[in-house]
C-alpha cells in the first residue's frame, strides 16, 4: 500500500504543510468516527496505532506519552515538524494505515470504508479503498 499522503513530498509540500495536513486529516478521522464509536474509542485506536508504529518511528513514543489525555493531535503535529518531509509523510501514512487496519479488524472492511469514506476521499488522505490490502 502506498498512501497518497506519502506522495506529498514528491508533490512539493514542505514539512509545515505536511504536519498541518496530517493534523487536519486526523481531525477529520476523529470527526467521522467519534460520534459513532465515542471519543474514547477513537483515542484508544489512535494510541494503539502509535504504539504499533513506534518501533519503526521511535519519536512517535513522545506522541504516545503526550496523548494520554484527550488528543487534539497537536502532539503529533509537533513531532512531525521535527522530521524530514519524507519521514513525516511516510510515518503519518503508516500510522493511518495501522489505524485503518485496526478498525477494519474490529468492525470489518466494509463498515470501516463506509465510515471513513468521506475522510479518505480527501486528496491527501491515507489509504484508499483500492489500496487496502485484503
Amino acid at each position, binding site marked *: 500500500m502506498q498512501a497518497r499522503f506519502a506522495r506529498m513530498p514528491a508533490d512539493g509540500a514542505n514539512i509545515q504543510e505536511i504536519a498541518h495536513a496530517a493534523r487536519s486529516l486526523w481531525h477529520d478521522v476523529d470527526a467521522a468516527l*467519534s460520534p*459513532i*464509536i*465515542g471519543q474514547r*474509542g477513537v483515542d484508544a485506536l489512535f494510541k494503539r496505532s502509535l504504539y504499533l508504529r513506534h518501533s519503526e518511528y521511535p519519536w512517535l513514543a513522545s506522541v504516545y506519552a503526550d496523548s494520554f489525555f484527550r488528543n487534539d493531535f497537536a502532539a503529533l503535529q509537533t513531532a512531525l515538524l521535527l522530521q524530514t518531509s519524507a519521514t513525516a509523510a511516510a510515518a503519518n501514512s503508516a500510522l493511518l494505515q495501522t489505524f485503518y487496519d485496526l478498525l477494519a479488524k*474490529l468492525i470489518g472492511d466494509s*463498515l470501516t470504508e*463506509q465510515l471513513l469514506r468521506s475522510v479518505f476521499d480527501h486528496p491527501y488522505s491515507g489509504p484508499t479503498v483500492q489500496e487496502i490490502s485484503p
Partner: protein
Amino acid sequence: MKTDKAKINRLHTGVPGLDEVLGGGLPEFSFNLIAGSPGCGKTTLANQIMFARATPERSALYFTVLGEPSLKMLRYQQQYDFFDSEKVNRAIRFVNLSEDMATGDLEKVLARIVGEVETHEPALVFVDSFRAVVRASQRDGGSHRELEDFVQQLGTLMTTWQATTFLLGDYSTEGEANSNPIFTIADGLILLRQSVQRNSVVRKLEVTKMRGQPTLAGIHTFRITDAGISVIAPVQFDVPAESGAGMPDPPRAELGVRGLDAMMGGGLPRGYSLLVAGPSGSGKSILASAFLAEGARLGETGIIAAFEQRPTQSRGPVMAELIESGRVGVVNTRVPGISIDEIAILIIREIQRLKATRVVIDSLSGCELALAPTFREDFRESMARMVSALASTGVTVLMTSELEDRYVDLRFSPYGTAFLTDAIIVQRYIEIDSHLRRVMAVVKVRNSAHSNQLHLFHIDADGIQIDEMLINRDGILSGQPTRVPGLSGRHIDADDH
C-alpha cells in the same frame, strides 16, 4: 362534527413472528421499551428492526450509551445477515452519548438527543441502553423524579417529532420492571428473558403492553440465529367446519396396507388425524412409511417429522427414495430448545412449500423428548393446538405413539392425547403357542363405521401384512389368549367385512 379518528399506522418490524405477536406491527410514533436481562437479545432486536425499516428518507438514529462499547456492538451486530454496512451513515446514524452521559447531566444528554433529532429528523430513534442513563443519573445524585421528567420529555419530544422510539434497558426482575416509572410512560413494553431449566436455555419474549392494539398474550419463544431474531408466534388457524349428519362423507386416504383400509371402513377420512399406538417394534413406523408411500403412489406429497430415527436412512430404500425425490419432505426437529409451536410452524411451512396432503409425526414419545424441558409441562395443550392447526390446513395426519404393553388395561397413549385424534389404531404383542405375535385393531374412526376385529399381522420385506382374524381366542388383550374349543381361525380377505 368531525368524527375521523387518528389513524395509527402499524410498522412491520422485519422480525419474523414479531408482527403477529404485536398484533399487526408496531404503532407508528410509539414510545417503546425493550427490557430484559443482559445477553437476552435487546440490542440485536433493536438493530434488526432498525436495519429492516431504515431508509435514507425515513432514517434511524441509534444513540449508544455505555453499556456496550459501540465498537463492540458494531463488531458483533454485523455478524447478522440483516446488518447492511451500506446503510450506515446513509439511512442509519449511530450516535455515541457516552461522553455526555459521563457528566451525569441528563439535561445535557437530552439537549444532545434533541440536537441530533432536529438535524436528522429520523423516523426511528433508539437509546441503548437506558439502564446506563439511570445509573449515571443516580450516581450523580439525580433523583427518581429527575429521571422521570427526562423520560417524559423524551417521550413527548419523540412523539411530536414523529419518531418511533425504543429505549433499551437491563431489567432483571419483573418487580423492578413493573415499579419503574419508565414502564408507565412507555406505550409499548417488550420483555425479553432467558428461561433456564436443567441444562436447557430457552429465550422468551412477552409483549406486556402495547397501547391501542390487541397483542397476542402470553410468553413466546424466540431464537437467535445468523439471520437474527425470529419469534415463534403461536400458529393462527381457522377452525374447520364440523362434519356431521347430513354432510357428505369426506373422501378417504388409503393407508397403503392391504386389508387395513377395509378395517377402517374404506380408508382414513381425509383431513382426519390418526393415532397409531403400540409398543416398541410393533410396526408403527412401517405403517407410517406405508401411509406416505401410498400417498406418493397416488401423486400426493407428504411430510415427515421424525424424532427418533434418521428418516432417510432407517426407513428403508422406498422412503429414502421418496425423500430424495422431494415427494416426502423432512422437518428437521433436531433443534435445541424446540417447542411444539415451533414444530407446528415448521410442519405447516413444509405443507405450504410442498403442497402436501399427508403428514406423519413419528413419534409423540420422541417429540416429547425433543422438547426443551420448559415445554414438556404443557405437552397436551400444545399437542391439541398443533393437531388443530394441522387439521385447519386440510392435511391427513398420522401420529405414532409408543405404548408400553400393559395387559391389564387397554391404553392408547401415555399422554392422554388419544382424545385429540379422529381415529386410532392400536398394535399389541400377544403370545400364541410360545410365539410372540402382533395384533392390530381399529379402535375408533370418528363418524364412520369400522371393523372392531383384532387381526394378526406380520411384517415382511413388503411391509405390513394383515393376517387372519383371531376368532377362536379369548382374552387376547391380556396378552395370553386362550383357545375357545370347537372353533378355528380363518384367513381374511381385504374385503371380508
